[in-house]
């Protein structure tokens, strides 16, 4: 299939609680919901803090650094847009400032690079990564330059 006819990857379908995350991401910012009263970060976003039951929340900017907690390499059968990139990686990143917040993403070669731009054998648990933003407003991850 040519790039014109290839179906697009799925876009996030935000709910009311999640919408700010995607709005910040579209501006190239990685932010996580946190309680305004007790300060605990939480993910996925929700209306009430499970630690102190406060309804006052804020969106705290993250450094964008983290480590790979786990990963999978999906193979077909997959939706066509994803099958076109398979096998690709899906990683779970533990954020440096908030280790229990783990974001699903992809390890890519650089901003805007495709899902399969890093060979699967280069993905490993514990690897340091940092967030990058391509044109689609989704945070993806590159290996941190040491």
């Amino acid at each position, binding site marked *: 299939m040519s790039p014109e006819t290839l179906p697009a990857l799925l876009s*996030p379908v*935000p709910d009311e609680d999640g919408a700010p995350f995607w709005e910040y991401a579209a501006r190239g910012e990685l932010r996580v919901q946190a309680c305004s009263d007790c300060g605990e970060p939480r993910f996925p976003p929700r209306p009430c803090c*499970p630690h102190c039951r406060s309804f006052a929340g804020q969106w705290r900017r993250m450094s964008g650094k983290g480590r790979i907690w*786990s990963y*999978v390499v999906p193979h077909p059968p*997959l939706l066509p847009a994803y099958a076109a990139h398979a096998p690709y990686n*899906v990683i779970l990143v533990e954020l440096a400032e908030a280790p229990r917040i783990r974001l699903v993403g992809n390890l890519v070669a650089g901003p805007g690079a495709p*899902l399969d731009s890093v060979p699967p054998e280069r993905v490993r648990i514990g690897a340091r990564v940092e967030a990058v933003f391509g044109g689609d407003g989704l945070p*993806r991850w590159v290996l941190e330059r040491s």
Partner: protein
Amino acid sequence: MAGFKDATAVVGIGQTDFAKRLPESEKALACRAVLAALDDAGIAPGEVDALASYTMEETDEVEVAKALGLGDLTFFSKVGYGGGGSCATVAHLAAAVATGQATVGVAWRSRKRGSGPRPWKNTAVQLPTPAQWTRPFGLLRPVDEIGMLARRYMHQYGASRDHLFNVALACRNRANQNPAAIMYERPLTRDMYMSSRWISEPLCLFDNCLETDGALACVVVSRERARDCRQRPVYVHAAAQGLPAQHHGMVNYWNDDPLTGPAWTAARHLWKHADLAPDDVDVAQIYDAFTPLILLSLEGYGFCGRGEGGAFTEGGALETGGRLPVNTGGGGLSEAYVHGFNLINEGVKQLRGTSTAQVPGASTCLVTAGEGVPTSALLLRN
């Protein structure tokens, strides 16, 4: 749980054929399974006054009741979270019967997953939380979600693909003894497993359950009523549901400890209210949509310690004659994947002494529902 323990019994079980493709509708299959279970029990459809099913079941109570000429229903229940609801259907009926809300309850599951649609392929209706956090990145299918936990589990505890193979093999070996199983007379070897295609690394083809068309049902009545039924009663000794604090469903990645799932919560309640301990279990039917779920469940239900699920499978432990024979009909991996209901019926067969892979003298059986989602479990005894 005074008043619940052994107060009710499963007295009838029924099932349709299992196949990749069956011509009849889900509704017709549901009706056939329910009638078969009632016939097995020797109870007339008009006596049924309670129904229980679980979500993702297309045929609702009204349809089943009117098609089969059931009596006035005074209890009906639909349990959430897909395959996590299987055992809870029996538990809800047992509770209803034990508390006098109903006298004859039927639980069922009918599914055309072999030939029917799969919900995660429906991109026209994109679910919000948690799909917004996962699907755009290509984490699309249940196997991808569980594969993430499996990879971490293997990394953290040194579990290997051989451990996953032990699970797949035990289920396949039992299916090879069960003429009703889809994988009857289709042996599995280590070489086949290790060289099979990946579905979502680290999980391969044989780590996945079968896509199946089929239906099953069972009948629950009081201990007293059970004495008048055709079959030897199988008592509902204890039951539990489990939805742990800060659980997130299949993608439990945001829990403090994603590798302890709903099984741990259900198990705590189950054992607390049972006269039995894990060591007393003769045979277990453990939900096996994917092989790693059995390792996690072995730990969750207390058959071994944390991180020891892989090692537990060594030396034929899950096989007939092993430390804990599991999924003696072949399970979801090799008999049929009907959202775990075949595990309930297989548990009943074991305690009746009629399994195709009978554990000699089995008198206690643990049956579990989907791990990785809000779950449920039953402890059956005869």
